């Protein structure tokens, strides 16, 4: 920063410094997304007693790069009947928010790009924009399958967004702040001060809603390859499809990381307050955050390998008739506990 300041005007130096930091976040994230797709194929492969991709590079480690190169050289089809501008904006609206949400994400106690007080509100707002990508893609494609997939998907996403929002309100009540860093600091103490214990129903609901929000199995009727082919992105090919794909996987990692942050204490060491704490004091918080995120990221893959697809009416019933009532009740329980100063996880 000082170096840049010395030979550039102050405003420009600040902007370049910020851009450098953003690149430091986005590049590892893109690599993570690329290798998450490989991890998915490997994990599901092993669960089905196969080996998974193993041709490109040692153990198939070159596979994501090969996939990216292949997609880059594929033809991008613009259907004649499609609304061209909207057709091209839709993938951007899926990938953009999935990346931009990381702006306020605290990776460690001091490691955050923008330490803003409205952090969680910003993330909730950005993840809500994702539904526009889906619905615009479905409408602009001007294809029956795409429209059906988009409408199904949009109704499903907004339904689960309510349960998700209520679960986040529960976290806010317990933490008393919208700042993501403060939410983690409110869980300081030990494994049993993390919010997974007092907010356990909300943890389950938040994560399952996250799976439904990202249109992942077992909630993937929007894609439903056996009936509506690929849903809203049936007309997309080449890089336009790749951008959708990246957006979906970036969203999955984002949901996993947010769950780890709000319910599993983010960067906090799991050995806090025990005799093991000094032994593991050298491990940076980023590593703990990564491991906790990996747990949920793995669950995403495990779900896909395990559960058969839900029927649409079952999905809507789960969202509206099970999750929303439970979250409302649990918000009141947590709210009452906070007002009566019962919460022992606060000290």
């Amino acid at each position, binding site marked *: 920063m000082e170096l840049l300041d010395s030979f550039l005007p102050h405003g420009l130096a600040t*902007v370049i410094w910020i851009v450098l930091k*953003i690149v430091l976040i986005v590049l590892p994230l893109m690599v993570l997304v690329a290798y998450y797709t490989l991890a998915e194929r490997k994990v599901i492969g092993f669960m089905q007693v196969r080996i998974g991709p193993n041709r490109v590079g040692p153990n198939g480690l070159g596979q994501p790069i090969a996939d990216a190169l292949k997609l880059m050289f594929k033809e991008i089809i613009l259907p*004649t009947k499609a609304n061209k501008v909207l057709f091209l904006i839709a993938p951007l609206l899926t990938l953009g928010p999935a990346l931009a949400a990381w702006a306020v994400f605290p990776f460690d106690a001091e490691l955050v790009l923008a330490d803003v007080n409205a952090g969680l509100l910003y993330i909730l707002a950005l993840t809500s924009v994702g539904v526009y990508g889906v619905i615009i893609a479905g409408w602009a494609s001007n294809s029956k399958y795409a429209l059906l997939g988009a409408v199904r998907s949009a109704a499903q996403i907004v339904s689960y967004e309510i349960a998700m929002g209520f679960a986040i309100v529960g976290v806010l009540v317990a933490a008393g702040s919208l700042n993501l860093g403060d939410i983690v600091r409110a869980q300081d103490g030990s494994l049993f001060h993390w919010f997974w214990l007092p907010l356990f129903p909300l943890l389950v609901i938040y994560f399952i809603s996250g799976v439904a929000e990202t249109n992942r199995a077992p909630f993937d009727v929007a894609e439903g390859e056996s009936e509506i082919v690929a849903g809203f992105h049936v007309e997309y090919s080449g890089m336009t499809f790749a951008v959708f794909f990246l957006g979906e996987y970036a969203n999955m990692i984002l949901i996993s990381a947010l769950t780890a942050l709000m319910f599993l204490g983010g960067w906090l060491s799991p050995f806090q307050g025990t005799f093991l704490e000094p032994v593991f004091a050298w491990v940076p918080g980023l590593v703990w955050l990564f491991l906790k995120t990996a747990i949920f990221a793995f669950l995403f893959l495990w779900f896909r390998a395990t559960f058969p697809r839900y029927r649409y009416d079952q999905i809507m019933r789960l969202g509206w008739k099970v999750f929303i009532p439970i979250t409302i009740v649990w918000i009141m329980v947590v709210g009452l506990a906070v007002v009566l100063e019962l919460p022992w996880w606060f000290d």
Partner: protein
Amino acid sequence: MLENYLPVLIFIVIAFVIGAVMMGMGFMLGSRKPDSEKDSPYECGFEAFEDARMKFDVRYYLVAILFIIFDLEIAFLFPWAVVLGEIGMVGFVAMSVFLGILVVGFIYEWKKGALEWE
């Protein structure tokens, strides 16, 4: 205070630029061989018939309307949740009344069958 949000703004711009650049590279590197059959809407081997912008179930609209009500509710709950520790019992009771009204409406729509998908 507000300069805290500058990185957020730059991040949003960069996020969209990344997507645009990736698609731009696809356009530059990929081949372009347009063909009237290839570029027609996909329909399992059929010639596409009728308009693709077809009618769909009214219940999707219903879900969207209900979503707006509940999403607003969440927007109201956010500030309340942040300061609940300070406003204490009065704030809690006030929000209970508000949530109670919402729940009455929720039960009504449930009984009316607005949430049924046969």
